[in-house]
């Protein structure tokens, strides 16, 4: 299909076909960077700006590698909260990026909707790399890619997302993507970390992890974002670990033997997931990192006008 979208702001407003186009394009991308000579000339002369208002190592590095392997010029621009409080306005920064020649701006921001504002303000194409607690489309796409790779298909699977759903943009993007590709979505976490209205979205809500894992094909374990936790949302990390930690013992007791474990990283080892599970062959956490580069190459490639099938020939 032709990919005509100007920006990638979230999976909620994307069609199933667009999501599949990205996943299908990511496949040859992954083969390319598994080669010893990784560079492709596809984005030569294009400028990708990583505009990050929140600290991030992995997502930024992943977009940077994705851009570089396609020969784009990548500029990393981190905006500290101090310059925001100094009065440097968001739209001024956006227009500066445009004046610097940005073709694609990859933005991470603590405010939901900031990528939408950026997309309205500049002519550059915008990729949302995480906005507040709203969406994180590239993470969800790499999760979908990983599930497809391991399970063959997403249609008909049951996927359980565990953790702080309330503050999770990864969870929201995953819910949209999984539902559009035909999976059944469950979420599990402390009741204080479940946002209102999820049942109206067709999501099954669990506060008992064992029940949520029963029959699940995939478990996506969210990072407990210690920096985002206001005191009192759950009693203690120790209790969280006991009630919602993914341990080998729990998997043996209640999960399907072929369950696939995902984690967006970086993991709080011994809190939401134990080191043994991280190293378990059923856990795809390392592949997720590589798949993330492939998916982001596909996003950059399609947004800069590439045709999905051109890479395979």
């Amino acid at each position, binding site marked *: 299909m032709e990919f005509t979208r100007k920006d990638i702001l979230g999976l909620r407003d994307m069609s199933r076909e667009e999501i599949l186009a990205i996943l299908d394009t990511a496949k040859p991308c992954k083969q390319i960077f598994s080669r010893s000579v990784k560079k492709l000339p596809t984005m030569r002369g294009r400028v990708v700006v990583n505009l990050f208002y929140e600290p991030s190592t992995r997502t930024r590095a992943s977009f940077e590698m994705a851009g570089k392997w396609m020969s784009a010029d990548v500029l990393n621009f981190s905006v500290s909260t101090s310059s925001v409080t100094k009065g440097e306005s968001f739209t001024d920064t956006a227009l500066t990026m445009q004046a610097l020649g940005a073709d694609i701006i990859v933005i991470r921001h603590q405010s939901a909707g900031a990528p939408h504002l950026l997309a309205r303000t500049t002519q550059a194409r915008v990729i949302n790399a995480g906005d507040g607690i709203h969406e994180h489309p590239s993470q969800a796409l790499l999760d979908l890619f990983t599930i497809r790779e391991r399970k063959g298909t997403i249609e008909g699977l049951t996927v359980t997302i565990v953790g702080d759903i309330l503050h999770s943009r990864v969870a929201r993007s995953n819910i949209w993507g999984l539902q559009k590709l035909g999976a059944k979505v469950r979420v599990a976490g402390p009741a204080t970390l479940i946002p*209102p209205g999820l049942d109206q979205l067709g999501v099954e809500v669990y506060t008992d992890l064992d029940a949520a894992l029963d029959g699940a094909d995939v478990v996506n374990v969210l990072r407990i974002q210690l920096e985002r936790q206001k005191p009192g949302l759950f009693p203690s990390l120790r209790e969280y670990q006991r009630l919602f930690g993914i341990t080998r013992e729990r998997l043996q007791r209640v999960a399907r033997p072929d369950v696939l474990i995902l984690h967006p990283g970086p993991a709080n080892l011994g809190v939401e997931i134990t080191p043994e599970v991280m190293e378990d062959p059923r856990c795809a956490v390392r592949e997720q990192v590589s798949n993330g580069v492939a998916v982001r190459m596909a996003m950059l490639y399609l947004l800069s006008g590439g045709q999905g099938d051109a890479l395979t020939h």
Partner: protein
Amino acid sequence: MRLLIKGGRIIDPAGEHAEGHRVDILCDAGSIVRIEPELNDVAADAVVDAAGAWVLPGFIDLHAHVGEPGHERRERLDTLTQAAVRGGFTKVVVMPDTEPARDTADAVRALRSRGSELACCVLPVGALTRQRQGQEPTEWGELVEAGAIALGDGKPVADSGLVRRALIYLQRWGTPLFLDAMDLSLAGGASAWESVHATIYGLRCMPAEAEASALVREILLARLTGGRAHLQHVSTRQGVEWVRWAKEADIPVTAEVSWLHLVETDAVLGDYDTSYKVWPPLGTEADREALIEGLATGVIDAVVTDHTPFTTEEKLVEFDQAPFGAAGLETAVPALWTELVESGRMPAATLVERLTAGPARVLGLPEPRVAVGEPANLTILQPGRPWTLEQDQQASLAANHPYIGRPVRAAIVATVVDGTIRYEQER
């Protein structure tokens, strides 16, 4: 100045004029002097053709914000009152959130003295506490005697004892206390109500109980003291229920609702357009239904604009960092008429009552009428007429007008203040 209004039909909720009779109205020296089926032989300095339009008592807005002094780029008093008359309002109550805050008798008098040069009447609210900090009381009696129509801080007051004392003290003058009922400790920096939309859009949100629990406090203090508590911008279904309960128990409270909450819901927040980020936040469809019902049945006394102007640079920012508020003076009534009256959801007379007699009762003013001997404050509105407010046409300086560019099916034809045409739309 003799002004003749030809061929309009009167809606006069506070009077005995039957709706729908075609009349001519003659105003002289600021008063209505004749109302007759046909006035052909009178000399007039000006004539307004009101054929096919309603002639209504001038609207009263109980709740607007102005940037003068302190933030004149948001809105000045002259632009505010020009916007008001374009929207059909002949009296506007302005909150004290200027800079410095309107917390002294001098500041109230200074605003009152501007009267003659402005397009319509401006009624100042005096701050309840010094610098609107919610702590030290201002000189309440002096503010009232200088001309404050009501007292209030224009933001939630946490100190219940202070609210109690003000409700007792103000009874000597019969002055209402304007209360922004919200428990900020439950609100916690939210910009939306808890709902499926807030979850989808990733907005920080708060339970309706943040409003309800604060409303209950105000209602109980009004019952305790017998003082006049006016509940500003009720915005949730629960809020309406508590106000209904208070009124059924004959507790002396009045309540208002903002126009935007009657025509929009939180479904629009997904575009992150900060013109829709208002205080209190837009509610769900169930909230909107309850507010319309509350307004129709009189549980809510008045509909207000809560006109809160901001500049482009203040509003063109990330959604959760934008200030709360929307401009509305110029579009509130045409939008309400379209959504409520043209759609058949509310009789025209009911909406007019909530824009005229309702707010007058809240302020303790005489109910405005279209009748001989009454002041000639009149609004002429043409129902069904397609109209759109374009950015370059608005009188307000505000950059945060949610209804810019949105077509409505009702237009303000002319606004008459004290017998003078202060606005007339080109036809």
